[in-house]
């Protein structure tokens, strides 16, 4: 019998659509009946969405960029 534990341990396969039909059917049946697991899947997906937003953050400051540019200029034109 599928339990919450099975939803948790198969979550990557579930969201990447890699589960076999039988496992998927059983998980979905459990999900349908378990509000805790529904909330788990929703918050898991939202967490992934928010984590992905970190990609838009810039770490390199103009100073770092400038130092890199000057260093490479000296390497590109050693004479």
């Amino acid at each position, binding site marked *: 019998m599928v*339990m*919450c*534990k*099975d939803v*948790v*341990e198969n*979550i*990557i396969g579930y969201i990447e659509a890699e589960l076999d039909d039988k496992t998927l059917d059983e998980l979905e049946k459990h999900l349908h009946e*378990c*509000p*805790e*697991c*529904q*909330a*788990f899947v*929703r*918050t*898991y*997906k*939202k*967490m*992934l969405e*928010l*984590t*992905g*937003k*970190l*990609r838009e*953050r*810039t*770490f*390199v400051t103009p100073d*770092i*960029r400038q*130092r*890199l*540019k000057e*260093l*490479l200029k000296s*390497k*590109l034109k050693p004479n």
Partner: protein
Amino acid sequence: MATTPETGSISDEKLVELFISSNDENAFEEIINRYCDKIYKLAFRITRDHHSAEEVLQEVFITLLKKIDTFRSESKFSTWLYRVTANASYMHLRSEKKYENDVSLEDYVPYDENGTLVGRIKAKDWSDRPEKALLSKEAMEIIEKAVDELPEPYRVVVHLRDIEGLSNEEVSVLLGLSVPALKSRLHRARLFLRDKLSDYFYERSK
């Protein structure tokens, strides 16, 4: 270093070819524009030190200048560059003897011994909070901090897979991990992050 119309739409691999064949500085500048931040961020994620991240950034581009002709176009340029960056970052950790204690998250599970979810997940469901709250500056800082709290082997896979958006296969190749091993790390790391975010948004709603 501005992206020029001539170089902006060219593939990474073509830029490398241009630089090798004709020493085209615009092509090299375009590579810098595309990867400077990505390299720095990966280096910072591994070393957790801005000074080390900048040193790695400079080392990677110098390595690139010296060894760009060893790049083989059968692999993706970005994967190759990330691997060079990860190796340089680990060298830094080693030279500064800053290896962390390998804390394992393998036992990190949100369910009890009966296999039932614990932690009142439904009561704490924050997934329908308004975008404004979820994407606030404070919330993004919390996510950033939560990622940084992960032990290094977990942090690097979250960075490459979930933040930079590389595929399982790409991350697996560049870290020298099997896909199942990668997924296993990713899984525990994501459970940890989901819990951290749940705690944060739940506290905010009280």
